[in-house]
């Protein structure tokens, strides 16, 4: 299950030149469900390469942040720029890994077919998935150590293996910015090791990876930067400067009620 160096060496990610423009710059992002604000005036700038954790208590708007940034849910206000431009989804520059619980794992589809979805934007509309696409998908499955399980129906994989399939799909996309929603939640130690190693590999090849994460303890060991959210942005920057007792108390302590809550009576 552990990545063999042979596999890694034979499929190296080409290093990218440093981009002068941030992969993701967010200004004043505000999102509301009906009339209840979920994110309020969030600013965020991602480093050109590195691992960034998005942290905060339940209901702080962490997943919403990723979805709103990607335009999957409408935003009330704010501006989002990828590499200095509005998002061009078809470019495949930005890879999204949804929460594992967001999909139906009983779906009649195999692991390799799921990974091949990472190539759909390149295959183009109305064209079928061909053998060579599946071969390319197998290569990515190999990178996450699941080559043997490529033809299994996805429901027969363990939670950690399912998460690795999702990651392999994002790898197949060969993006420059990765947005991952809780990739380390509820998975076994072996899978966690594979996932973390891959994240580091992405960083080493100049990618930016933004990860919604819930386990504060593991943050310093994995991530370079962090953003602490609770509807508003509490703090952002290098992990050491973000995870201070004062910031954590503001995020997790007394329920943070933005002043809008009082205004709108929500």
């Amino acid at each position, binding site marked *: 299950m552990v990545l063999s160096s042979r596999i890694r060496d034979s499929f190296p990610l080409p290093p990218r030149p440093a981009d002068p423009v941030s992969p993701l710059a967010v200004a004043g992002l505000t999102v509301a469900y*009906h009339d209840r604000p979920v994110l309020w005036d969030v600013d965020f700038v991602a480093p050109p390469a590195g691992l960034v954790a998005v942290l905060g208590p339940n209901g702080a708007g962490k997943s919403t942040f990723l*979805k709103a940034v*990607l*335009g*999957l849910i409408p935003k009330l206000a704010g501006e989002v720029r990828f590499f200095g431009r509005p998002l*061009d*989804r*078809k470019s*495949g520059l*930005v*890879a*999204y*890994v*949804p929460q594992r619980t*967001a*999909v*139906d794992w009983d*779906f*009649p*589809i*195999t692991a390799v077919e*799921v990974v091949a*979805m990472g190539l*759909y*934007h390149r*295959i183009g*509309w*109305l*064209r*079928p*998935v061909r053998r060579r696409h599946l071969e390319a998908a197998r290569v990515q499955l190999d990178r996450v150590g699941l080559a043997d399980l490529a033809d299994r*129906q996805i*429901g*027969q*994989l*363990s*939670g950690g293996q399912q998460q690795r399939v999702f990651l392999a*799909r994002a790898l197949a*996309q060969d993006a420059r910015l990765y947005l991952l929603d809780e990739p380390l939640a509820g998975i076994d130690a072996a899978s966690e090791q594979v996932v973390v190693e891959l994240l580091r590999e992405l960083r080493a090849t100049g990618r930016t990876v933004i990860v919604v994460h819930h386990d504060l303890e593991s943050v310093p060991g994995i991530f370079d930067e962090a953003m602490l959210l609770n509807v508003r942005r509490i703090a952002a920057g290098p992990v050491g400067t973000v995870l201070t007792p004062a910031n954590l108390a503001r995020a997790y302590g007394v329920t943070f009620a933005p002043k809008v809550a009082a205004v709108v009576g929500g």
Partner: protein
Amino acid sequence: MIELADFLELDLPALATGTLAALACGLLGNFLLLQRRSLLGDAVSHVVLPGIVLAFLVTGSTSTWPMMLGAGAAAVASVFLIDLVQRAARIEAGAAMGVVLTSLFALGVVLLEQSGARAVHLDVEHALMGSLEGIVWLGARDFSALVDPDRLATLPEPLLRLAVVTTMVALLLLVLRKELTIASFDPGYATSLGIPARAIGLVLLVASAVAAVAAFAAVGAILTIAMFVCPAATARMLTDRLGRQIALSALAALLAGTLGYALAAWAPLLFGSERGLGAAGMIAVVAGCLQGLSILLAPRYGALARARARSRGRRSGEGATARGGVP
């Protein structure tokens, strides 16, 4: 005894129409099932009635196209309405669907009863029961009619309509299979990749509406639901591969259509009765029986297989998972 001329004039068109209806709806049902929107087939087939009545009231004609358009528009509108009610009232999808489909169906019935539409050949009973037996191919006396272009041009309209719709549905699944799959499996990821999952979902619903409208005239509103759900559910029990599931669902639809019609039309003859039974209903019953059989006997997920796996698991002292895999 069954006479050839009777078969060609009466049985063949009805049989073909029922089977095509099952096929068109059954193919689409695969994706509705996987999106857990099987009840949308329910909603869509109910609102066909108000759509047809409204189209008649607006245009004043009973010609086919205005009615098809009206029904299709009503079906699409109902989908938006369900979505609106669900979000505005903040209730689960099932409850929203219940509110919308009963209200619209009631509206359709009242419009039909109150307006002059009842005088023309629309009535609630047909909407609820279907009238497969009314589909006849007049003048087809022998097999040469099957290759005679002049005769073929007189094939009954519902049959031709369903043939076109079934072909279109099959093409749609063929061409959009990859997009429908990703939009059904992981709409969020699909959208992030520039594949508009919502729009694709809408295409599926419009296609379902069209299929429901085409099937409606032959089998009625409620039996259309059986066509949407049963073949796909039967196939779902039997396989874990999408391609095979679609093929098996088509097979189940064909079987239900032919066997159902045969039972309804010819089984009573064996008991000396001259009148056939309701063919549309019988097709639904056969579709349901196929589904029931597959639920009981499917090799891996069937009730018997699971019971056996459980008892074996208990004997070997480890809790075998009934799902046949790690949850």
